[in-house]
């Protein structure tokens, strides 16, 4: 990820956090002392900063405390007091405090793998956990410290972290870091943290501490006069103290001796300098604006340059050109045109959005009309519900739509009577379909009861048939027994032909009479 390291970010970054070593321009009297480090004192005056390992630079935090306005007055006789403070800070991190690498301005694009997932900056003092996740030491400590319920889990994978302690000296959670990682980190190219003060140095991150401590012209050092307590950029640090007020020879203003050169270079209202380009004598305060716009020798471009004229010349030669250049003559008109075009484009965008919304509404109305013509759909198909929020039925379609969750359902905003009619039409259709459904259910239920009822009737009929049949059989048997007896009694009187005829007639009559009855009883039995 190259974004955070692109050079354009320089301003953005340094605004974000004035690092301990950021130094304001030297000409601003007084402010320079607030954020100062005097690291060179380690070897120029070793007595003052013997804490921990001797070659280590003292903590900028401690030095800031040392040189803070309130302390400055008191430090003269008691340099050990702020050093105790430094000691306590140092104990926390177990390492000598130094440049906060995350405030540096990175020039090389940094590989995503070298970026701390917590602060999103290139890793600073990387720490590897047992789960193989790597963070800045400081970031990890703060993240673990902030975890609640005494949990200490890896911020990336939530694996439990063993051996962590708030006391840096007792921490046992770190595993070794691959050397290649630290090397890659050290090779990232950064700008000097004193860049704002004017240092142009840029090199590997591994060297920045050394540069600031030993070579940077803009590093603030303790005044050579040990009693003074003020700081001075390395390049102005001579043999004697410059922290006394003096009068500018030109304007008679009282200026700190240290800032005198800067005052005479760019601030003094009485001082003038020859412009390096046109040779005119210009007050130093106006020199910068003179060079950027007024100086006749400064190269400027034709006013028509945004519209195609490529003419460039010193300020003085531009006037004759603008008189003849057709594009320059057109420039005011063109720029007015441009402005109008811009506003119209903005308006058009708004209109486009409006049209989009209206078109959406129109197409949903259209689809509604089309489908109602076809008349083949039920009002609650999912497709319809998706394409048209208007179709939410206003009727009692479950408690959900009528509940307070969707107040809009109760009062849909109708733009026109057509829409209102459409809405009414739709809710009526819903109503009808519901009635239709209810009818179908009722119909089915009636059919079912009818069927059950007739079945039972049929069964009963079969039973009755069987009973009747039985009785007929009995009757027949009784009748035939009776007929037999009569025939035997009147046998000699009646001719055998008559009797036989009668018997034959009865038998002949009884047989066809019996058959259908038996058949029907058989049928009913089969049905059962």
């Amino acid at each position, binding site marked *: 990820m190259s974004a955070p390291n692109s050079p354009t970010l320089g301003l953005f*970054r340094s605004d974000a956090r004035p690092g301990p070593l950021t130094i304001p321009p030297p000409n601003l009297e007084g402010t320079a002392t607030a954020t100062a480090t005097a690291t060179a004192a380690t070897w120029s005056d070793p007595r003052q900063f013997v804490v921990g390992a001797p070659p280590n630079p003292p903590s900028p935090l401690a030095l800031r405390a040392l040189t803070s306005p309130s302390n400055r007055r008191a430090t003269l006789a008691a340099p050990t007091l702020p050093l105790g403070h430094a000691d306590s800070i140092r104990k926390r991190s177990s390492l000598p405090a130094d440049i906060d690498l995350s405030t540096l301005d990175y020039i090389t694009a940094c590989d995503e793998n070298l970026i701390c997932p917590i602060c999103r900056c290139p890793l600073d003092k990387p720490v590897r956990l047992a789960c193989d996740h790597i963070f800045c030491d400081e970031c990890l400590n703060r993240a673990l410290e902030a975890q609640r319920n005494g949990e200490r889990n890896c911020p990336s994978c939530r694996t439990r972290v063993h051996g962590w302690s708030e006391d840096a000296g007792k921490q046992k959670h770190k595993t070794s870091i691959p050397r290649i990682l630290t090397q890659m980190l050290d090779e990232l190219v950064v700008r000097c943290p004193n860049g704002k003060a004017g240092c142009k140095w840029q090199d590997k991150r591994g060297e920045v501490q050394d540069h600031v401590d030993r070579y940077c012209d803009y590093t603030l050092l303790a005044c050579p006069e040990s009693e003074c307590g003020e700081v001075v950029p390395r390049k102005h640090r001579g043999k004697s103290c410059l922290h006394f007020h003096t009068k500018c020879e030109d304007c008679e203003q009282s200026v700190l001796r240290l800032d005198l050169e800067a005052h005479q270079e760019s601030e003094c209202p009485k001082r003038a300098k020859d412009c390096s380009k046109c040779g005119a004598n210009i007050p130093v305060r106006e020199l910068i604006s003179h060079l950027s716009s007024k100086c006749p020798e400064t190269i400027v471009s034709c006013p028509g340059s945004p519209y195609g004229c490529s003419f460039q010349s010193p300020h003085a030669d531009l006037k004759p050109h603008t008189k003849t250049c057709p594009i320059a003559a057109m420039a005011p008109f063109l720029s007015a045109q441009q402005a109008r075009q811009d506003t119209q484009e903005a308006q058009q965008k708004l209109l486009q959005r409006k049209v989009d919304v209206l078109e959406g509404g129109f197409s949903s109305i259209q689809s509604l009309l089309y489908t109602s013509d076809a008349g083949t759909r039920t009002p609650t198909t999912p497709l319809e519900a998706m394409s048209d929020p208007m179709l939410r039925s206003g009727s009692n379609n479950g408690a959900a739509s009528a509940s307070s969750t969707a107040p809009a359902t109760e009062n849909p905003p109708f733009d026109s009577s057509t829409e209102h009619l459409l809405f009414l039409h739709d809710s009526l259709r819903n109503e009808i379909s519901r009635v239709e459904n209810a009818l179908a259910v009722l119909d089915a239920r009636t059919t079912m009861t009818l069927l059950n009822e007739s079945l039972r009737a049929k069964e009963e009929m079969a039973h009755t048939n069987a009973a009747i049949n039985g009785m007929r059989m009995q009757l027949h048997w009784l009748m035939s027994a009776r007929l037999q007896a009569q025939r035997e009694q009147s046998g000699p009187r009646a001719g055998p032909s008559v009797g036989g005829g009668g018997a034959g007639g009865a038998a002949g009559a009884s047989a066809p009479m019996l058959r259908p009855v038996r058949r029907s009883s058989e049928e009913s039995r089969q049905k059962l």
Partner: protein
Amino acid sequence: MSTDAAEKTAPQPRSANNGNVTKRLQTELMTLMMSPTPGISAFPNDDLLNWTATISGPDGTPYANLTFKLSFEFPANYPYAPPTVLFKTPIYHPNIDFSGRICLDILKDKWSAIYNVQSVLLSLQSLLGEPNNASPLNGQAAELWDKDPVEYKKLVLARHKDLADEELAGL
């Protein structure tokens, strides 16, 4: 460890690192602007500790083609504590109440310092498609989600329409 120690050491680094919040947020902003993720966007308001973000509903969910506005409020110890995130667009969802408060573990006790605006927005986007119906803020929504997707979708659209009307009126 004793809470005593925590109280003693905590304020010191916090005050020393206050600038880290803005720095980290600037980095995040840059990342979001240099490599934008489709479907999400975020930008600070007047103050870097207050952002407005938008997410678009994921395809194939009832929220498809809808856009939701959110507000982010970052605490002074961000990213060590989670930002306060609220839905500004009315939304019908099992885990979001009617004032836009979100019930999502990573914005509460499961927060980790490695999360950022982008990962929070992506999580919220996936929450739209996969609500946690076990602990709903909106019980009715949780019930409907399984029972009646059609009705659910209707309610989502109805709730979202409040905003669409508002915007149209504002044009």
